[in-house]
């Protein structure tokens, strides 16, 4: 390279700056993406669960609880109930409490609880009972 040393130094610095700008443009996050997307999904982020409860004999009343809060409840003469709930699902799973009461004198009956998330059925349990039942169902 010809020219005086100062000119050569300026050319080198300019080349570095140009390269830096080019690299910066390439690495700049897209406006459509979050600045720092997590490597893995948040483990306890709430997800949508579809919960369905079906009775053969109409219940006097029933409810489904998660951590003490009612997420589905109802009573006869309806037989089929469902809801969608946002629940945080830790690796250890979640517990749903199903409490159902049938009218006095009703014969032994059956109740089915199904739970779906992400299009996949992850729980399908059937319980027999007379009078009332209380069941704790582990979902994971």
């Amino acid at each position, binding site marked *: 390279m010809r020219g005086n040393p100062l000119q050569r130094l300026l050319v080198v610095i300019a080349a570095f700056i140009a390269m830096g700008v080019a690299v910066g443009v390439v690495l700049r996050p897209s406006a459509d993406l979050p600045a720092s997307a997590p490597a893995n999904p948040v483990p306890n982020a709430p997800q949508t669960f579809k919960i369905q409860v079906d009775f053969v004999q109409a219940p006097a009343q029933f409810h489904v609880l998660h951590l*003490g809060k009612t997420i589905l409840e109802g009573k006869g003469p309806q037989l089929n109930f469902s809801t969608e709930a946002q629940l945080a699902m830790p690796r250890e799973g979640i*517990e749903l409490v199903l409490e159902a009461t049938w009218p006095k004198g009703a014969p032994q009956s059956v109740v089915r609880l199904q739970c779906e998330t992400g299009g996949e059925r992850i729980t399908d349990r059937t319980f027999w009972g007379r009078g009332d039942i209380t069941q*704790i169902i582990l979902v994971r």
Partner: protein
Amino acid sequence: MMANAAPLRVVTLSTVLADLAHEIGGDQVVITNLVKPGTDPHEFQPSPDDVRQVSNADLVLASGKDMEGYLNKLKQSAGGHAVWLEVGNKLPNLHFHSSGTFTPDDPNAIDPHWWHSVSNMKKAAFFVRDALTQLQPTQKDFFVQRTDAYEQKLDDLDKWARLQVALVPRDQRKLVTSHDAFQYFARDFGFIIYSIAGVSTGDQPSSQKIVSLIKTIRDQHVKAVFFESMENPKVLAEITRETGAKIGGELFADGLSADGEASTYIGMMRHNISTVVEALK
């Protein structure tokens, strides 16, 4: 029922068994409990008067599972005609196990604190009923009736306990306790146990173990630690200071209290469950 049947003399080596013998035997038993409330059963040694009580007993109820290290000596020195029932020996063993970064002192040791499982207590009630019936067959109906009534109370307790524990998220069911006495409780209710001391209250934790426990409590985001007595408050204070975990309250691990809520088995279980749930939910 024979009106004039002499009550059976029952000696118990734990407050839990004394309560159980009372529930099943009613006024058909006279109970002498040698290990008083507040006495550490891991450290208990029978006195000469205790040996005399055993000599005159019809039935001796022990926890078993090596809880009473003095049992053979007591049997030999007492003599007598008593039937001995080591209740825990008729129940399945539960070994201690590692949890995450935390390793128990002796992974081969068996947890002798079987009564922290309500289902174990129901089986124990049947064993005691059968032993009393064998000694006093004329009172069979009386013992069966009382056992059935107690079984119903234990079923109610179990249902209540499971509903209470359902208030605690499963990823928060981590129990830091003074000594390793809650493996049966953990199995039944889905907890992981991290204990400060070992299986016996006499086991003292090493500094290495404390460091490991502090790391585990931080890593696992454990919300509370529980104590049984303030034998070593410095250790507990250090753990809460280093981890930010709170003091969850007092648990009854080795027996019942002299009075108050935890003076019966059912009351003791209700106290322990309520204390744990309140601190961790």
